[in-house]
């Protein structure tokens, strides 16, 4: 029964307006408390920012750096509020995590020219997994609030030779746009798209993983950015304009009739001039 309930809950989250994700998720957990852990780990929420006072840097919160009600900073590797024995990556993994954070920090600057990023890694049986988070809020120019949230979860399966690995990436990008203006009232265009990609990569040293993950994430984000552009500003706009026509449908019929007449006339002319 619980598996069916989880499927129904996920279906519901795909249908309810994403503008209220947090409230919907909170209500859902209240309604079916047994699903709490499953829901928190499988429903993407807009990323929250916290401040690492020690290091003077911002970091992002998600289920992967959460332990109880505390969150681990990727900069100082400590929990806030403090935890006596919170889950920490092994030393070897932590070293890679530090490198990954630095690398993706640069990636973020090059593509987003601002925002916050965080990378969290954890061990698996034959490899490791990680989440790369990026949050970029707009500056509110032209009276439009915008925000981009990236959640990339990558699973790295190291091959027994140690010379290559298989990377499986599941990415969700959330895009939020809202405006309130006299002409158009309140307009709220938001939500997310999810995609999956996988590929193999050669591994010559531990940091090769960062190169391989980086390339995969970059390609994925570029693809999703393109699709977001098409869906948000193409598809949904076309749907709106399909619901109501600014020009009267009588006018449109007239224009179409004129177009048909012209086409027929052209065809007849071509027929005459052919040898």
């Amino acid at each position, binding site marked *: 029964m619980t598996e069916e309930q989880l499927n129904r809950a996920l279906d519901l989250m795909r249908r309810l307006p994403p503008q209220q994700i947090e409230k919907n998720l909170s209500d859902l957990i209240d309604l079916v408390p047994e699903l709490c852990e499953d829901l928190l780990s499988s429903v993407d929420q807009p990323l929250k920012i916290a401040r690492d006072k020690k290091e003077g840097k911002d970091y992002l919160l998600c289920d992967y750096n959460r332990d109880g009600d505390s969150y681990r900073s990727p900069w100082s590797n400590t929990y806030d509020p403090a935890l006596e024995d919170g889950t920490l990556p092994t030393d070897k993994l932590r070293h890679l995590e530090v490198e990954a954070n630095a690398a993706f920090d640069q990636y973020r600057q090059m593509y987003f020219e601002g925002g916050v990023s965080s990378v969290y890694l954890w061990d698996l049986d034959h490899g490791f997994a990680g989440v790369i988070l990026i949050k970029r809020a707009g500056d509110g120019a032209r009276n439009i609030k915008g925000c981009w949230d990236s959640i990339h979860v990558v699973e790295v399966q190291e091959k027994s030779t140690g010379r290559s690995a298989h990377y499986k990436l599941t990415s969700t990008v959330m895009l939020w746009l809202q405006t309130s203006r006299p002409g*158009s009232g309140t307009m709220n265009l938001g939500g997310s798209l999810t995609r999956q990609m996988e590929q193999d990569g050669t591994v010559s040293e531990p940091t090769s993983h960062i*190169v391989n993950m980086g390339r995969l994430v970059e390609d994925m984000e570029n693809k999703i950015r393109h699709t977001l552009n098409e869906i948000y500003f193409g598809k949904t706009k076309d749907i709106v304009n399909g619901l109501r026509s600014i020009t009267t449908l009588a006018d449109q019929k007239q224009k179409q009739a004129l177009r048909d007449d012209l086409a027929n006339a052209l065809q007849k002319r071509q027929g005459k001039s052919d040898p």
Partner: protein
Amino acid sequence: MAETRDEQISDQEKVRIASDFIRHAPPGEFNEVFTDVRVLLNNDTLLKEGVAGAFALYNKDQLTPVKLPNASIPSLVTEHNDIGGGRFFDPRSRQSFKYDHLRKEASDLQPWEPDMLVETWREALETQFTEYTANHYKHGVCAVFAQSRSDCMSLVACIEDHQFQPKNYWNGRWRSQWCATLSGGSGELQGTLRVQVHYYEDGNVQLVCSKNVKHSLTSSNEVETAKEMVRLIEESESEYQLAINDNYQTMSDTTFKALRRQLPITRSKVDWEKIISYKIGKEINKTQ
């Protein structure tokens, strides 16, 4: 939210949550949301007793079109033609009907008496408004209601148009609701325009728009007032649609571009080997 994650919330809270979910179902997806909620609530008695009210509220809020078995032109289910006991009236065909909110069907048709004090005004507006709807909404359904009050007359005109394409993972609906209050040659026209689009192939993207409009009216006779109202409505709705399109342009040209570039300023993808070696270089410099 419950104190601890294991604590059960009250039945009343469950009903509130279930009703909220139902009322936020995107256009065209009521059945799917209903089924989800039914399985999650896991209590059909509570569903029937506590949540059934939400079905009616949803349908009325959505301006749900309804086909009457003996009328060629469909009507709408709204708060303005709700006469209680699960019955609504259709002023166009002068009938009342029982409405099944789950099956979305009309039955038990009875004759309905219009309010003769305002019926000529209502009919005049209905004629103009129906032509307007046909001119701008390919599959639009409209309905006009009128009510006489002690000191004024109120006219309500609604339009609903939708496109449901679940096989292509999208649905959309436009709703217009215009209310005119007239008294002694003048009045006010107030409109609420709402658009909602849901796209859900490998994701969940929704457009939710709403706008309130106000105009002052001078009323002479039935036909002239109706024409004036429709003129203002057409103007407002087209202006609204143009403004939405304008926003789309700005959102894509300005806002979206400023969030993430297509490529870095170098015009080529990131050199990841370089990024790694740069960091290592910094580390080496640190230890020196």
